[in-house]
């Protein structure tokens, strides 16, 4: 299960921008790191972030499920198939250089997964919207992210109904690849044309709510921000800059 979970951790109480800034900094910084040890530190930091959000158990499962596929593929592509000096691990022989490369690439992805899954677990969407409103983020941007999340399940349900209806009318989902590509039309057309027909209705609904009035909205209950939170966010930005400055100055991290 992925998504927000109620809690009272330091990350739950923090301004929503703070965990987002930490995760974004990790996402950017890991690509400046090139050694297995430094990437290992980034993974450890991401795990600490999950611990700080009291979400490690909740986050670890999806992170490992998603990450393990990548790790296995990396070990095959780089560890097994790369040339060069070999290391024997049980019955398998791995390339030493390939293993190091797989560790760096896999570690980066693991760090990103832990960091952002933690953000999903600790940042309440409602608080995030309040924070964005408070900071004057235009309505359109918030609408796109928040409202689309509500549209997706509705469209999924409609796609299922269309699939069933077309099968009832004799549409075969199997057969040759050409027949299956041809079946896309009767399935996708009603879905998209039906949704396009509703565009006007939604424009009217938004217009009646003054969505394009251009006025700055007032947040009802904006999340409190702290000096510590602001300093942490600036520190994240500076750390990313420092990591890339070191990388481009030729100091391998």
């Amino acid at each position, binding site marked *: 299960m992925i998504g927000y979970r109620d809690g009272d951790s330091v990350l739950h109480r923090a301004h929503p921008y703070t965990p987002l800034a930490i995760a974004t900094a990790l996402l950017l910084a890991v690509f400046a790191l090139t050694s297995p040890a430094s990437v290992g530190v980034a993974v450890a930091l991401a795990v600490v972030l999950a611990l700080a959000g009291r979400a490690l158990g909740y986050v670890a499962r999806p992170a490992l499920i*998603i990450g393990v596929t990548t790790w296995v*593929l990396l070990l095959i592509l780089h560890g097994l198939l790369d040339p060069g000096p070999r290391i024997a691990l049980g019955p398998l022989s791995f390339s030493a250089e390939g293993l190091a490369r797989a560790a760096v690439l896999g570690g980066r*992805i693991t760090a990103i*997964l832990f960091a952002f899954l933690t953000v*999903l677990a600790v940042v309440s969407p409602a608080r995030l919207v309040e924070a964005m409103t408070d900071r004057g983020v235009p309505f359109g941007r918030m609408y*796109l992210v928040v409202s689309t999340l509500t*549209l*997706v399940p509705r469209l999924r349900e409609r796609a299922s109904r269309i699939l069933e209806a077309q099968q009832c009318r004799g549409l075969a989902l199997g057969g040759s690849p050409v027949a299956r590509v041809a079946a896309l039309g009767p*399935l996708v057309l009603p879905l998209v044309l039906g949704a*396009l027909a509703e565009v006007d209705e939604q424009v009217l609904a938004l217009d009646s709510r003054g969505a394009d009035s251009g006025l700055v909205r007032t947040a009802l209950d904006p999340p409190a921000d702290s000096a510590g939170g602001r300093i942490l966010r600036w520190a994240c930005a500076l750390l990313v800059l420092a990591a890339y400055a070191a990388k481009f100055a030729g100091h391998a991290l």
Partner: protein
Amino acid sequence: MSLRNLVLVRLGVAVNLVIGQIVAALVLPVYLDAVGTILVAALAGPRAAVAAGLVSQVLAAVLSGNFSWLPFALVQIVIALYASLAARLGLFRRMATALPAGLLLGALAGGTAAPIAYFVFGGATAGGVTAVTTVLRALGAPLKVAVFTSSLSTDLLDKTIAFALVCLILRSLPTHLAARFPALAR
């Protein structure tokens, strides 16, 4: 962005995220996760299409939990800009022009995705693309060549079908609906 375009972008993002369900039911070796972006490009132009592509990538990450795919947002931008140009040139009006235009987009998208797959993921993305990469690598192809070939082969088919679908959608639009999208008339 006008309210109409905003609603269209939302619809395009939802189509990008939902169409996988239909593709999975048909067991097709493609993603078609840019059909919404291409449709928005044809109906509302490049700015809305870029927004649709970027929001799709972010929401796909939020819904799947796989945030490591965020760098592929660059591919969505390329698709949005190219599809807008194709729409402006009228390439969606006939299937005979939409198919080659889709094929060319496949080459462009594959060419953009391959360096991301190589440098960020070391070639290990997911699914069928990586299976092709692994087979090519096992046959002795250098990793760069294997990643580029697998990325290109998947995208050529994927984007050609996506362009054909959007051409079909635009041609099937009832006149009263088509009249509401001025970009379509250009």
